[in-house]
């Protein structure tokens, strides 16, 4: 088994708000992130796939295909978007880094030939990141 990781960057805005909470609860739980006008981040996405090295190509995955899938499924949908308003997953769930990682996993799962998805890592800032390994 060998693991390959590809990185990509996207910039997006979001805010944290749960309509089931009172305004006071939203402010207390989400703090600055509750500002309804949103705020932005430069996200770094790391997608790790795993598999066996193809003896003929020497590849674990077709890098071109991986890049295209990441662009089509993630960057086209999320780059330079307001996640709460423009990405379907976040019309009804909060675009925390945790939920973004899960949404990206679901968008990528099953889209790759041969290699299997191992990990989706999303950096919100260089000092904060989330890993998702799929459902247990």
């Amino acid at each position, binding site marked *: 088994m060998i693991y390959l990781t590809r990185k990509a960057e996207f910039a997006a805005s979001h805010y944290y708000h*749960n309509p089931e909470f009172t305004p006071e609860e939203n402010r207390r739980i989400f703090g600055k992130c509750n500002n309804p006008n949103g705020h932005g981040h430069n996200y770094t996405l790391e997608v790790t796939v795993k598999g066996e090295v193809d003896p003929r190509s020497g590849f674990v995955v077709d890098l071109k295909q991986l890049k295209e899938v990441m662009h089509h499924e993630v960057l086209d949908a999320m780059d330079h978007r307001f996640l709460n308003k423009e990405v379907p997953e976040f019309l009804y769930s909060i675009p925390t880094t*945790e939920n973004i990682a899960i949404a990206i996993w679901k968008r990528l799962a099953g889209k790759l030939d041969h290699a299997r998805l191992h990990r989706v890592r999303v950096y919100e800032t260089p000092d*904060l990141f*989330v*890993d998702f*390994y799929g459902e247990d």
Partner: protein
Amino acid sequence: MKAHLSRRYLFSASHRLHSDTMSEAENQATYGKCNNPFGHGHNYTLEVTVSGKVDEQTGMVCNLVDLDGFVNREVLEPYDHENLNMLPEFAEQVPTTENLCMRIFEIVQRGFHFAHLERVRLEETMMNSFEYTGAHEPRH
């Protein structure tokens, strides 16, 4: 759905690697420059990874305010801008980054209950880092 969340923190401290159980020559041979009697300092980067179910109401593994508050109070305040050798926990133990990493893991595991502690990773410099995941083999 379970996710892992990692947060990085910075602190600066000094230490000297020296074991009273070794002779002067053994200390020199084992620790080299790090055995300099006056000590030396590092900018440490601490990376704490916790895991848990993503709460459906908040979308979070745990609230960062809680994690930041705990790490600031229990790790950064005691260690930042300190000479590690002067602290009680390192009176009998050499403050290598391995031992410091394990010590921080114990502090977080014992006191932080809002999520499961997966790993503590401590970078001593850009070129070397240490990880401790507790007394079990890491899953990933």
